[in-house]
């Protein structure tokens, strides 16, 4: 005997029941969308202004009490804390200035034969994948400031690292009691009315701190500037009285982070295509929203699982009832 037609349809309908949950996504369920809260804070990083001095990196370590990073060679030769020479984000380094260069690298803010800097740090997503993915609320997004930060309830599963579209979280792989690190926008300083270390220390106004809607407005003003136009750049915060008047570079007419993966609170401006600076091209929908929509459709009110279980209990009861060992139907139908 092979599976007869009726059984085959049973199998199909079982599959279809499960498929219905997923299918809903494509028909009538809109993928949910989150928005920046009114008092959310953010950082505007203007790569055209960054001079690559790394004062922000030093300040970040100082404010967050982090040790310096060393290359393998330096570690082998006993160097420690003389200087900081890590080349990427790490459990000790929460922001990092990266260099872009091309050809003879003669002119700043130019793709061809030019160079530029880019600051890598947590983007503080509006709809963060890490927060959605974390099974134990180890990452939370502050309901007021929107700052995403880590806490001790973390179970170290590193699903956040799978989920983060920017590859930001860093896990202590070489510790028996590991923790996860990433930029938390100096929340301990911000909550006392201060500003993050990187913005405080930046001498050129490349990193400015402020209400996320205000920095978004500031970003829009800047990309509307004509190349060479004089503009008063605030230095540390969006309303800083300390300003620097200089001519605008040729901005790319795009604010990175305005819409990426549902939007971020860390916004980036540049004169060089963002992809060349190592920023991923992302859809406007957060992958967290897609996942949660699928998951909550299937598990809505636990109705589908309970219905399925009820059917299974009945079926199992019917079969198991006739299934005492001596009565087993061994012959073919």
């Amino acid at each position, binding site marked *: 005997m092979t599976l007869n037609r009726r059984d085959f349809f049973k*199998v199909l309908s079982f599959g279809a029941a499960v498929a219905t949950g997923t299918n809903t996504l494509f028909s009538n369920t809109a993928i949910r969308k989150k928005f920046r809260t009114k008092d959310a804070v953010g950082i505007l990083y203007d790569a055209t202004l960054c001079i690559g001095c790394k004062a922000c990196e030093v300040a970040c370590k100082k404010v967050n009490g982090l040790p310096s990073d060393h290359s393998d060679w330096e570690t082998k030769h006993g160097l420690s804390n003389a200087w900081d020479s890590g080349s990427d984000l790490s459990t000790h380094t929460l922001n990092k200035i990266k260099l872009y260069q091309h050809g003879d690298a003669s002119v700043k803010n130019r793709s061809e034969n030019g160079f530029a800097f880019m600051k890598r740090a947590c983007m503080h997503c509006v709809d963060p994948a890490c927060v959605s993915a974390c099974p134990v609320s180890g990452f939370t997004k502050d309901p007021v400031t929107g700052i995403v930060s880590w806490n001790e309830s973390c*179970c170290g599963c*590193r*699903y956040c690292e799978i989920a983060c579209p920017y590859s930001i979280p860093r896990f*202590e792989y070489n510790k028996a009691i590991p923790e996860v690190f990433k930029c938390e926008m100096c929340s301990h300083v911000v909550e006392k009315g201060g500003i993050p270390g990187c913005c405080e220390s930046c001498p050129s106004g490349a990193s400015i701190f402020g209400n996320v809607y205000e920095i978004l407005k500031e970003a829009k003003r800047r990309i509307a500037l004509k190349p060479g136009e004089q503009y008063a750049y605030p230095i540390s915060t969006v309303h800083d009285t300390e300003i620097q008047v200089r001519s605008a570079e040729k901005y790319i007419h795009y604010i990175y982070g305005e819409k990426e993966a549902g939007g971020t609170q860390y916004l980036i401006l540049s004169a060089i295509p963002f992809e060349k600076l190592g920023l991923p*091209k992302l859809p406007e929908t957060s*992958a967290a929203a897609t996942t*949660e929509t*699928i998951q909550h459709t299937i598990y809505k009110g636990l109705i589908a699982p309970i219905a399925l279980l009820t059917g299974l209990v009945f079926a199992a009861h019917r079969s198991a009832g006739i299934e005492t060992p001596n009565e087993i139907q061994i012959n073919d139908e």
Partner: protein
Amino acid sequence: MMSEHRPIGGKILTKPFLVLALIAFIAFILVVKRFLLGIGSVTNLNDGYPWGLWIVYDVLVGTAFGCGGYAMALLVYIFNKGKYHPLIRPAIMTSVFGYTLAGASIILDVGRYWNLYNMFWPKYANINSVMVEVAICVASYVMILWIEFSPSFFENWRKGGTPKYINKFMFVFIAIGVLLPTLHQSSLGTLMIIAGNRLFPLWQTNWLPLLFLISALTMGFGMIIFESLFSSVILNRPLEMSMLKKLSAIVSKLLLIFLIFRFGDLIWRNEISTIFNPGFKQFMFFLENALIILPMIVLFIRKQSENPRSLFLTAASILIAGTLYRFNTYLVGFDPGYGWQYFPSIPEIVVTLGIISVELMAYLVFVKKLPVLPTVRQIENN
């Protein structure tokens, strides 16, 4: 009342058993090292590839291999095919090992294992996280499997066999035992949706849950066929061919359904042309699907599906294909960018081999000491 299953008896400490014990011992030392010095001291895992061999093989593939009990329960109890009954107990036993060790191996891979209970703690459990669903379902399924398997212990050690109250409510456990794998095997696919475009388009799709579920079922049936033929040869028992033939007919249809969704999705998303660009990922995609298409064709040929040799090879092919599908979705197709790379370290591989060894050792002990395998009379009657 005598069960139709019997322990097969025989010496426990055979040569293969001791070799397995040695591998398990070395793995144990490495596990101790991991707990003292951190995950990085044993594995090549990094911030770009936070999940490697341990998660993908031990957990994903391990539980999929352990879907034999699920597949058989679905067939025997839900679709009321009593005639497959002699195979259900060995199938559940494989599931018990697969799932118990998968659950245990999570503790190795999770950095802050002492906080794992937070997944079940209302204050911390994040219901938006697919992983919470997986954790709750896998943990409860391990318990259900032990209950489903408990008659083997009772028949052996308790006078009067399985207590009445367990038998009476067994159908409830069986029903839950079908529900839970349906939920978590699909969720194991949903887990990767959040990786967004870091997962290559040949694998990233909103249909991952359904594909993972069907794939798990094919692997469950594949495992029953593989294990039955393998144990017949190794333990010198008659082949259970007539039943396996019928199972293989079901598998071939499941493989077809899988392929329809797999390729239908690629066409629907307009990604089918991606297959034809040369590259390593495309090669792995090709391999993964060839190992599904080939056994499907073989099983559709009646003469081949009656041949134990081809049946064994097709079962192996299905298991390898399901394994590849999981490796491809979680590792090969996953690219975190920024130059990150990953290949498992030797100690990492040894730990996985150690877990497999423990599983095989437990299998040998259980079939020799407990009434798990169907009696020879019953096979021949069929």
